[in-house]
């Protein structure tokens, strides 16, 4: 797993980082071509977005293998739903929503969440750790150990910058529940990271 340099980090807009204007222009064309069943254009969309989608799936599931499956499922779902994509949001934002639905659907279906909790502590740091920086690595690990409800809200709201309204809509929960889960996540993370003693 390779991380982009932290120097490339930009502020999130609508939950994801914006594409450069020339890429965004190409992207509209690829979307139209993929809507007309052009698999080559869809592959270009995949190449442009896979790292963001995989990153989201990884943070929501905490399991690299499950995140790969979710990413593949999300792109297959996106291909099937593409004729109904009207461009009200960017393709990246739409793709994020498809990915979130895919993660939640798989979790509901397979009931692997308990397995995830058991196996995540076995995941060795190093190549499977998402962040290089010590503080970030600790935070990644602490997020992985959150209960799923709090983790999903924290990932979407605090990491990807979605509002509580958007987070609630994506997760199928009320806005107030999203706020409560975020507060719970912050409290648990602060305890785990022992920030109060800093």
């Amino acid at each position, binding site marked *: *797993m*390779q*991380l*982009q340099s*932290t120097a*490339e*980090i930009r*502020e*999130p807009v609508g939950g994801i*980082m914006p594409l450069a204007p020339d890429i965004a222009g190409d992207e509209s064309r690829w979307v139209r071509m993929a809507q*007309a*069943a*052009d*698999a*080559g254009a*869809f*592959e270009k969309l*995949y*190449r442009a977005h*896979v*790292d*963001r989608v*995989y*990153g989201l799936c*990884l*943070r929501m599931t905490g399991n*690299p293998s499950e*995140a*790969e499956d979710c*990413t*593949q499922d999300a*792109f*297959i*779902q996106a*291909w*099937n*739903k*593409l*004729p*109904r994509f009207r461009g009200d949001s960017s393709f990246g934002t739409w793709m994020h929503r498809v990915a979130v639905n895919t993660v939640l*659907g798989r979790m509901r279906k397979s009931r692997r969440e308990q397995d995830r909790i058991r196996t995540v502590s076995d995941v060795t740091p190093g190549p499977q750790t*998402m*962040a290089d920086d010590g*503080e*970030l690595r600790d*935070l*990644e690990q602490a*997020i992985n150990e959150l209960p799923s409800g709090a983790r999903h809200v*924290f990932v979407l709201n*605090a*990491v*990807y*910058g979605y509002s509580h309204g958007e987070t609630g809509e994506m997760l199928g929960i009320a806005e107030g529940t999203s706020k409560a889960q975020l507060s719970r996540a*912050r409290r648990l*993370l*602060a305890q785990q*990271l022992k*920030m*109060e003693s*800093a």
Partner: protein
Amino acid sequence: MNENDDNRIDDELMSLAAKLNTPVKPDRDLWPEIERAIGAPVRPGRSVWNSVWAQAAAVVLLVGGSSGITYLAVHDGGDPTTPVGGTPALIFEPVSGSFGSQYNLGPDYQDARRDLAAKLDDELENLPPETRDVVDANLATIRHAIEDINKALAEDPDNVLLQELLLGTYRDELSLMNQVESITRTAMRRGDI
């Protein structure tokens, strides 16, 4: 710990979390399996005709098995209602000197298709996720088939067989959209009891 400490910790945590908003590269290329799953439709150099027949076969199979959609939605005992009005007659109105995607269908059909397509998103929201996925996949198959048949018609505009195939595929699309409407109406009626 006082309120100022809480705020400082929150700020610190949120600013740290925002730095995690980075793409992560998967260990392996996930595309080949995705490509296989989506059936890799029309590729440059590949015969349009092969694709058309493959797509037509897929549509026939899915329409033949479309009762599965109804089953998924109403397996707890309810019967789907018959759609009000039914499917309007499908009539081709070829535009003079044109072909393929320039074929127009009768105004009743176009109205029905437009109305149903506009309602479809709302209707799908009322269906269970599993049913929604089946409907999405089936609609995608039908629409990809329509695209491919149109491409084949562009090469052979007078081909009656292709015209019939296109007509039948449009009819299947309308039938599927009608079915979705019927299912959601049944589900809502049961939910109202």
